[in-house]
């Protein structure tokens, strides 16, 4: 139930934003434009950081894998390549020697 209520809220704010732009007639203030530009950057970074710590004390493997995935993302700009590189490194480092 909580899930569907959350979805209703997500639909409301998303559809609301899309409809507001098509219906409003005046542009947004410059400060709002600057703020919006940085929202995806801040939110994505905020989602990455806590997940790197991980559980079962494998934080080092996660950070190493994430670093190489970031490098792959930077070079290729491909979501899939970055995920594949990161998972491959992560799995390799988790093999007990």
């Amino acid at each position, binding site marked *: 139930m909580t899930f569907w209520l959350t979805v209703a809220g997500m639909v409301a704010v998303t559809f609301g*934003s*899309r409809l507001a*732009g098509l219906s409003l007639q005046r542009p947004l203030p410059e*400060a709002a434009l600057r703020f919006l*530009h940085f929202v995806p950057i*801040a939110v994505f970074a*905020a989602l990455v950081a806590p997940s790197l710590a991980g559980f079962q004390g494998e934080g080092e493997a996660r950070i190493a894998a994430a670093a190489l995935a970031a490098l792959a993302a930077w070079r290729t700009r491909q979501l899939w390549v970055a995920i594949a590189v990161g998972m491959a490194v992560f799995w390799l480092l988790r093999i007990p020697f």
Partner: protein
Amino acid sequence: MTGATFLRGFRAMAPLWLGVVPFGVAYAVVARAAGLSALETQALSLLVFAGSAQFSAAGLFGRGAGGAEIVVTTFLLNVRHVLYGLALAPSIRLPWRRRLAAAFLLTDEAFGVVASSRERSFPFLLGCELSLFVTWNISTAAGVALGAAIPDPVQLGVDFVFPLAFLALLVPLLRTRVELAVAVSAGGASWLVSRVEPGGIPIVVAGVLGAALGALLTREQPPPPAVDPESARREVA
């Protein structure tokens, strides 16, 4: 005539399908790994239809975040759509009912293609929008099917796909020193807050603080262009 214009819009998006499909598949795999059911995963694609917000919501559901935090994060990520509507409205006259349809299906990609083309009409816009909607939902369904084929997600460490996916979404956005500083600060703030408060609060706090920091550091510069078809086309639904 109207049908032909619609089809032209539908086909104008075809070059973007190649980027949308892996993104939709990845979203579905991430959402399933976060514990959403197949129906819930698909419902987000059908009802919310906003890639980065769906990714974040999946990540937040997986972290046990509350509904309010997920809705606030969705709002922060999607309020940029106001800009697209503002840019399109003067050149495409939309009566009430058409406006509802155009708004429900509006995305970065559809905006990018329409804004950079000479065609400005409701059928063309709707063709572009539906083209992405259909592709996004088919690839979500494909990802759900693929996710079901992964035997033991936790044992395999599939939860690690979350930070990797967000990292891959984040890295191409970092082009200036301020953008890098915002990412590092938001990441640090979120990590610190998550020590004392798990769930979605750290993401909302760090998201707002990070974006405010970026706005503050660039207050002397001209605002980023609201209409940047090239980057809108590159970014995610």
